[in-house]
């Protein structure tokens, strides 16, 4: 199986889906002539032409609403946000239009659209360009929210998102774009939305991690194994709808759980997973659910402060030790 970066896996998914279905088109800032601010869309303009790979002005609300309108009448737009920080300008169209259209039209107008781009922490770009906002979108019924952590997942999930008939928020992680992994080349390779994956099996504690925190959790599990502590690492991959069953099954086996996330703790996805575990598996828990979250402050610029703001391997190890009373 070929090994490639997550960036190239995403590019392959886009290329295959553009080739497969003429109703799919891609638009966003710098996606075409510039080849993508993060090069995820490299080569697509040359292959599919300016009708289907479209540079937009910097007008997030405008092109997001345009995409939703086009989806209402049969197209399947992929809207790239240069980063999800800029999607904040477009939230009215994502939340009030895309998420609710099918429901408030009594099932008449589906909105098959993918909003994708990098989200979460970046490198030293301070408060406005380095934040994880998946809990905002995950809050709304009508939206699906996907966050891949490996190259193969990125490809398989993006292809499913594009083929899905609902609006999908697809949050990539800038820090993972260069991460390599084996990726199936089969054009029919997809990964279903709403299905978690056990990234590492274990028996003593469960670590639920998503996106950037998955490699962090795997590293922590590796370190803990040296001390004889066997950790199971679960990546939900889709945040909404959440595959809570897989998480609960794991907790019933390990009786201890740590949730690692780079987002803020307050009203976050980790808080939701924690609440679900408490409701469904309270009697199985040998320790309170523990969250390891991004610090509850805006992201600072200085390198040392930024490092302190995002959970690292040591913090996850400490949290697992805490729930294991070690």
């Amino acid at each position, binding site marked *: 199986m070929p090994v490639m970066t997550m960036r190239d896996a995403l590019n392959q998914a886009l290329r295959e889906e553009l080739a497969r279905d003429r109703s799919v088109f891609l638009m966003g800032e710098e996606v075409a002539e510039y080849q993508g601010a993060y090069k995820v869309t490299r080569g697509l303009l040359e292959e599919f032409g300016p009708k289907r790979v479209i540079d937009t002005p910097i007008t997030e609300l*405008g092109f997001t609403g345009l995409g939703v309108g086009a989806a209402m009448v049969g197209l399947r737009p992929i809207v790239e946000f240069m980063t999800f920080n800029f999607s904040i300008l477009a939230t009215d169209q994502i939340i009030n239009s895309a998420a609710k259209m099918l429901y408030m039209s009594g099932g008449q107008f589906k909105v098959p659209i993918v909003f994708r781009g990098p989200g979460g922490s970046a490198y030293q770009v301070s408060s406005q360009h380095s934040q994880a906002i998946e809990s905002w979108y995950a809050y709304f019924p009508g939206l699906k929210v996907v966050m891949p952590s490996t190259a193969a997942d990125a490809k398989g999930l993006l292809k499913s998102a594009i083929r899905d008939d609902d609006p999908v928020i697809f949050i990539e992680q800038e820090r993972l774009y260069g991460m390599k992994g084996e990726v199936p080349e089969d054009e029919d390779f997809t990964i279903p939305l*709403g299905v978690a994956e056990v990234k590492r099996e274990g028996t003593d504690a469960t670590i639920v991690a998503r996106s950037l925190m998955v490699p962090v959790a795997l590293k922590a599990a590796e370190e803990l194994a040296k001390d004889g502590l066997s950790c199971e690492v679960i990546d939900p991959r889709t945040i909404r709808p959440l595959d809570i069953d897989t998480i609960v099954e794991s907790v019933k086996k390990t009786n201890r759980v740590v949730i690692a996330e780079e987002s803020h703790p307050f009203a976050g996805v980790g808080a939701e997973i924690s609440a679900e575990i408490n409701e469904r598996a309270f009697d199985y828990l040998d320790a309170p659910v523990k969250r390891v979250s991004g610090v509850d402050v805006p992201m600072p610029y200085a390198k040392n402060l930024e490092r302190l703001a995002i959970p690292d391997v040591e913090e996850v190890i400490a949290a697992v030790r805490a729930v294991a009373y070690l």
Partner: protein
Amino acid sequence: MSSQTTERREKSNTPAGGATGVLDPPAEAENQTHRQSPPIEEDRQTLVKIYHQMLLIRRFEEKCAESYSLGKIGGFCHLYIGQEAVGVGAISALRDDDYVITSYREHGQAITKGISPDAVMAELYGKAGGCSHGKGGSMHLFDKRVNFLGGHGIVGAQIPLATGVAFASKYKETDQVTLCFFGEAAVNQGAFHESMNLAQLWKLPCIYICENNQYGMGTSLARAMSLQNVAEKACAYEMVSEFVDGMDVLAMRRATQRAIKRARENYLPTLIEARTYRYMGHSMSDPGNYRTRAEIEKYQKRDPIKTFTATLNDHGILSDKDIADIEAQVKAEVERAVLFAEESPEPDPSELYTNVYANPIEN
């Protein structure tokens, strides 16, 4: 009365707000009210249909006000009374397969585009027989079969959506056009300006119709907009625009026909500013204390239906008896709609959970 085009980018007088916050149509348009209406080109059938639709949506809205007072209709309810010429005139110029998308003041436009008064009234009643199956209500009327893409509740949000619908027509290489209605208050939203820029930049077959009824809820145009000539704003995007007397249904029809020609033949957008007036409050809960009775009466003297009745009568197109017959027909249609709504069942409780996702995932 005809319209005034800004195609030549002539600067027209910006009307100023008066003591009561009243804004009159631009001076040119005011003068034209004393001129003769344009010669009637339409056949009798078309004219009767237009007349019927205007009267139908007037009586329908009057019935809505009544039903709302009786507690049969809940939530927000924004009535279209006074603005009928805008929606009917514009939509009368469309083909059936063209699209209409609009704001929350949309009952009349929905009916004119082809949703039955029964299905609209049932929707207002929150019934299963409603055009959105009771899930949308007054502000969210939809009907895919007649390409009516909704009723949208956030001021100006339908403008980027309309731009996307027009984008899709061009992408699919059809010659369908999209009519997008919005009030003048939406013009101050970024969504309007972002859409205007994209539509002209990408040459999209969208017709933007600003229904300038001169008040954004209780705030007059003079208190809300620095440049109060909406049509003129198209210049910022090099888009063709027209100012139209929104109280004249045939003027609206002609202006829309010109815009449709540009859209169908050359994929070009147009901004139409229709100066009009709503007689009722912003919604049913608004007593309208921000304007005077005299101001309302001034516009009622130019009532679009009365004026059109007189025109058709003068031209011998409708006799007094024809007019009485249509009135009786309309009355029966509205009564039937109320009966349908009353008798339609409430949505089944299981409907609460349907239509959240097109591809639901069980977890």
